[in-house]
């Protein structure tokens, strides 16, 4: 591991000033991803600015009936929070489906959004990787890509974003707040992650040196009837091979509001807008659910070894929406 400087920030302005313009400096939150990547040499920061003690650890109701979640709220505190459990159950289920109790106690909401892909080539500094070393190539396309992207990838990178939390936040139109030395700003989560294209090393639209300060969830009554389902290769403590956050409102047998987002299928949490469009105003039944899934997955470009994800995601859409429909009719 490269030697590094360490400073602890006590306020937001101080934190962004400490990081300054040094491209080799990093903010340290829970460290569950960054410290691991430093050990393997993927990340080689010159300095760490510890932001875990910043006063950003609150979850508050907003005037419009939404929630504002501070960036240093831990995954555990987010999932235990009464209002989150009432208003956005899929978000709680997504957080609880991720990592382990130990890691959820350490990990923060801001850090979760900035965690890096678990693509094995990205994590192995002896291998080429366009995300880690631009222009070096992508061995996953011809190699081990069983758990790689089927949507929105490019011939430069097929890695997936590993977050569960981010999938639910995407479904509920979360907005990211950040601070730089120039002032504060906001980014809707749907614009937060950049398209892969030929620049897979550029992952977010955050300005250089920006610190995520919080996530705002707008009011979403439909979210009270939502769920998250994660498919993985063992029952617990594993990354998804496919996941879904879904919310459904039905009036007189017709879909009046629906939210769908997919995880582990793209370089970012994938909002399934084509499926939502196909469903809104349609009859709420298995046939519509399957047609909506097909509308979204028509754009899928599976590789040789990950075609199963197309079937998996189609089945997840139908199964989870059917469960929500049944729940609503009880």
């Amino acid at each position, binding site marked *: 591991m490269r030697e590094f400087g360490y400073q602890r920030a006590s306020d937001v302005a101080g934190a962004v000033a400490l990081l300054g313009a040094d491209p080799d400096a990093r903010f340290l939150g829970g460290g569950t991803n960054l410290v691991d990547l430093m050990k393997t040499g993927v990340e080689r920061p010159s300095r760490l600015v510890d932001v875990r003690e910043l006063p950003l650890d609150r979850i508050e109701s907003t005037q419009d009936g939404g929630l504002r979640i501070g960036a240093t709220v831990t995954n555990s505190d987010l999932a235990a929070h009464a209002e989150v459990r009432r208003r956005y*159950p899929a978000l709680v289920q997504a957080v609880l489906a991720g990592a382990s109790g130990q890691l959820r106690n350490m990990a923060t909401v801001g850090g979760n959004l900035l965690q890096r892909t678990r693509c094995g080539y990205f994590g192995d500094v002896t291998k080429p990787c366009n995300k880690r070393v631009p222009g070096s190539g992508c061995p996953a396309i011809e190699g081990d890509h069983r758990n790689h992207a089927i949507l929105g990838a490019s011939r430069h990178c097929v890695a997936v974003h590993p977050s569960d939390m981010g999938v639910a936040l995407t479904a509920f139109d979360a907005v990211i707040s950040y601070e730089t030395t120039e002032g504060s700003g906001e980014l809707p989560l749907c614009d937060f992650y950049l398209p892969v294209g030929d620049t897979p090393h550029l992952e977010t639209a955050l300005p250089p040196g920006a610190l995520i300060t919080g996530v705002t969830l707008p009011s979403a009554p439909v979210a009270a009837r939502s769920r998250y389902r994660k498919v993985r290769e063992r029952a617990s403590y594993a990354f998804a091979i496919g996941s879904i956050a879904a919310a459904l409102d039905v009036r007189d047998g017709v879909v009046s509001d629906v939210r769908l987002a997919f995880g582990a299928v793209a370089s970012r949490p994938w909002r399934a807008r084509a499926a939502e469009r196909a469903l809104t105003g349609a009859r709420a039944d298995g046939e519509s659910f399957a047609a909506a899934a097909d509308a979204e997955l028509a754009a899928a470009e599976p590789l040789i070894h990950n075609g199963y994800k197309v079937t998996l995601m189609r089945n997840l859409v139908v199964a989870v929406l059917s469960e929500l429909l049944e729940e609503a009719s009880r």
Partner: protein
Amino acid sequence: MAPPTSSAITLNINGEKYTLSVDHRTTLLDALRERLDLTGTKKGCDQGQCGACTVLLDGRRAVACLQLAVSAEGREVTTIEGVAEGERLHPVQQAFLDLDGYQCGYCTPGQICSAVAVIEEHAAGWPSAVTGDIRPEAGPPPLTAEEIRERMSGNLCRCGAYVSIVQAVARAAAVEAGAEETGEAVA
């Protein structure tokens, strides 16, 4: 000018203060084992995947291998050496002994620290990924074997002593709740 790459820090561990100079690269795990002779905390994978190095930070379980020592300054660290009250074992330790919650014992300190926290998290009403009704009004779910397995899934045991571990956690939870049952019924 390059920033300093080491710091003098004071760690609060099991109620005692330890002052030492650490290279910033030092994890809490290495500081405990290599610098402070607190070798009860074990190094397994050293990448946050096995739970052998589980300790409590401000009362909450965390993996010491991904926690930088310098960043732990100011927090209360509890290791396996600090779980008992003097000569009196913690109910989780006693249950692991009574029910054989281990084979080789290497993962045991992490299992026990994790279980201590699991019982507190459950009592505080935290849901888990297998909790059916997560609404706060539903209250804590029964601490079934399924709940214990999910909540303890961050602690691997390569001997596969999970059956006894689940029983031990159930019994300790029952003891702490002041209940009469032994816990075997749920495992």
